[in-house]
């Protein structure tokens, strides 16, 4: 059975367990066909401009994106923070590769379908009576993009590469995982702001 050695900055003497080393794939190849199928459906929805399909991708993608962000930020994140370093590493090696495929797919579906839906319905035109709310939603999405691409995804990638080392640094993984969870929480909270804007647009 392979062994995993985890370095931590401070703490008790080395602890030996029998947990097998699981070297994480940076990109889980088994998930790629699912992503390709989803993106294919999205492209078809945009190309055919079908209102139902666009609405489906936008609402389903946005709902899942919001739910996952809030769950990771406010439920999973605090739990990870209380785990031991080896448990945190074990969890991260299974959780982070899945997030690397899931989140960009949800974001692409939500935003691409949302933009096309807004064009279809005329929401992006400056003559639209509630154009200010649409611009506000673009601003919120812009902030979310900066947080997600500038902080969340880099932390995700850095954790995955750290886990592939012969001696992953548990303290570094802990710091990066906390950053990942906090930024997921921030984007989740911003998503709630988007939900407020979108429900207002849909009912006025």
């Amino acid at each position, binding site marked *: 059975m392979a062994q995993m050695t985890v370095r931590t*900055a401070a703490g008790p003497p080395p602890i030996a*367990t029998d947990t097998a080393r699981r070297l994480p794939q940076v990109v889980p190849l088994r998930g790629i066909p699912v992503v390709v199928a989803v993106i294919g459906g999205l492209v078809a929805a945009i190309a055919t401009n079908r209102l139902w399909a666009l609405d489906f991708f936008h609402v389903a993608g946005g709902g899942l994106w919001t739910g996952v962000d809030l769950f990771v930020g406010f439920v999973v994140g605090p739990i990870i923070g209380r785990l031991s370093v080896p448990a945190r590493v074990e969890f991260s090696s299974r959780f982070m590769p899945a997030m690397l495929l899931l989140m960009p797919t949800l974001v692409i579906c939500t935003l691409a379908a949302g933009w096309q839906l807004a064009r279809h319905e005329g929401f992006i035109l400056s003559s639209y009576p509630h*154009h200010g709310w649409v611009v506000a939603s673009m601003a919120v999405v812009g902030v979310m993009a*900066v947080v997600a691409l*500038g902080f969340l*995804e880099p932390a995700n990638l850095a954790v995955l*590469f750290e886990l592939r080392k012969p001696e992953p640094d548990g303290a570094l993984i802990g710091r990066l995982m906390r950053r990942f969870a906090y930024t997921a929480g921030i984007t989740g909270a911003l998503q709630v702001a988007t939900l407020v804007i979108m429900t207002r647009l849909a009912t006025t």
Partner: protein
Amino acid sequence: MTATHSPEPAGRSDVDRLPPVAELTIGSMALVIVGGIYLAAHLPRRADLGPAIGLLSASGALLATAVALLARVRPFARQVFFRVAGWALLAYVVIAGMLEYVFVLDGTRGELLAVLTLMLVVFALDIPFLFGFSVARYQEPRPT
């Protein structure tokens, strides 16, 4: 699993002394996103391009500064940087290409298309650069 507790390896403490490459790149990305929102907010009218060109120039300058600062860092895990940045660049070239196609399909032409294209170029360079740096900064440089 064996958990050992050892001091920081050589090179790891250098992480804290790296120049503000990530901050500059995130700033560059933020400026180009603001520029894109500014242009999109004026559709279907054509917005005054002055502010957008200003934001684009500032964004490009921040990215160029980040590249120059990173090029001077020694030692740095460049193999890892180029591996991550290369794959991310491939993905973002595809995404930027799709967006460019949508712009052209929607009838965007002339100076507006040129500004949007340059914004896409900066955006498509920002993210791979940031991803590559974010991973490579924690990797041991290959001995020369």
